[in-house]
């Protein structure tokens, strides 16, 4: 007798995802949506869509949502969580949105220990706008605004968000994961689940940084992009738990 092992989660709407073929945004959407369903919090969750390729995530997550100005997702989340403490509030942000223009809002939400969860998609580039350099771009990485490759002397090194946020008291849980194979996707899911679990328990600010891909702007086939995220990105952005209040 046949039993369903895997199917599309009810945490996502029927709307077709707007992402390019093979983009990890889609995989991560599933992980977040499955988590909201499995923890039974979908109907009290409020998603904050940021500005980036995931700007339309307010159409994909099957819960209430707000669309934030570029970089301000954590400010919206703070504003909401403070007036609706019983709700689950999370942001979904790219590296341009979180690490560049939104670094202040994110750091201060973390420092205040806001009870929110941040899903941070690090794909080392600006996808939506057509492949400009991100603060997370790798040394030597060619982008439309670093056409000879990122030069450390000129642009500095890729910014290490998890390493930086690990120094902030208000952070309850912080892990960097990847999505380049089933094993890591499952680990990513567990990290996301733990982050939301901590929010349910009012433990403080939680963030999961996911080393992701942008096949189109990297100019790679989806499969090659997965390899690049493993071979080129992971060494610069080592995976692991950077902070866990329970382990302190």
């Amino acid at each position: 007798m046949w039993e369903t092992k895997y199917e599309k989660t009810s945490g996502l709407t029927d709307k077709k995802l707007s992402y390019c073929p093979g983009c990890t945004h889609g995989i991560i959407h599933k992980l977040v949506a499955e988590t909201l369903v499995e923890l039974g919090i979908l109907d009290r969750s409020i998603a904050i869509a940021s500005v980036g390729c995931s700007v339309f995530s307010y159409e994909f997550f099957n819960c209430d949502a707000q669309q934030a100005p570029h970089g301000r997702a954590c400010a919206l989340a703070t504003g909401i969580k403070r007036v609706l403490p019983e709700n689950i509030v999370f942001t979904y942000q790219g590296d341009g949105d979180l690490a560049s223009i939104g670094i202040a809002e994110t750091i201060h939400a973390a420092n205040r220990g806001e009870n929110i969860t941040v899903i941070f998609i690090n794909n080392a580039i600006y996808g939506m706008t057509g492949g400009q350099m991100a603060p997370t771009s790798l040394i030597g990485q060619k982008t439309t605004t670093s056409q000879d490759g990122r030069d450390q002397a000129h642009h500095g090194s890729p910014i290490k968000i998890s390493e930086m946020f690990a120094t902030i008291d208000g952070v309850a849980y912080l892990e960097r994961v990847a999505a380049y194979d089933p094993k890591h996707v499952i680990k990513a899911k567990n990290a996301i689940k733990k982050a939301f679990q901590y929010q349910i328990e009012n433990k403080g600010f939680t963030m999961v940084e996911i080393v992701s891909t942008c096949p189109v702007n990297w100019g790679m086939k989806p499969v090659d992009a997965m390899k690049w995220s493993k071979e080129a990105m992971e060494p610069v952005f080592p995976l692991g738990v950077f902070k866990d209040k329970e382990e302190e």
Partner: protein
Amino acid sequence: MDAKNIKVAGFGGQGVMMFGQILAYSATKDNINGLWFPSYGPETRGGTANCSVIVSDKQINSPVFKNADHLVAFNFPSLVKFEEHMAENGLILYNSSLIDEQKSKDNVLVIGVPINDIANELGNIKVANMVMMGAYLELTKLFSDKTIEVIIKKILGERKADLVEINKQAIIAGKEYIKKLGVKYA
């Protein structure tokens, strides 16, 4: 020559934008005015792409036009979307490899060219848009072979210089196809 309003449309990847740009570049080279305006933005991702081209020996005013003199449709959705907006004595060229036979209508000449098949015969599906270019030029006589060749070389540049030949062949093949059809336009 009075201004020609040209609409080029198809799937992303069919060389639609390049087709339009070649016309605008050619106009510029021939010291008349060329204007090219693309659909842009993420919504073009995967979806259909189109561009408007205006060539004229006078100053080009409105970049926007209601009716096209020429429509070059690389796929069916594009044909459907734009065929309603044709000017008097307009020309519609469509890709008959992907679109079933279409009838001509009053004041609009409608011609299909099996560009994918012809390009495949030439051994490179990527030059289908140049087959269309050949057919288009044979009918409209807008630009000389010399002009087009210069522009194609310019666009392909050093790196793709080896592709010039096949592109030229494609253009010739397109022209031949029209000649065989024996239709004339304007």
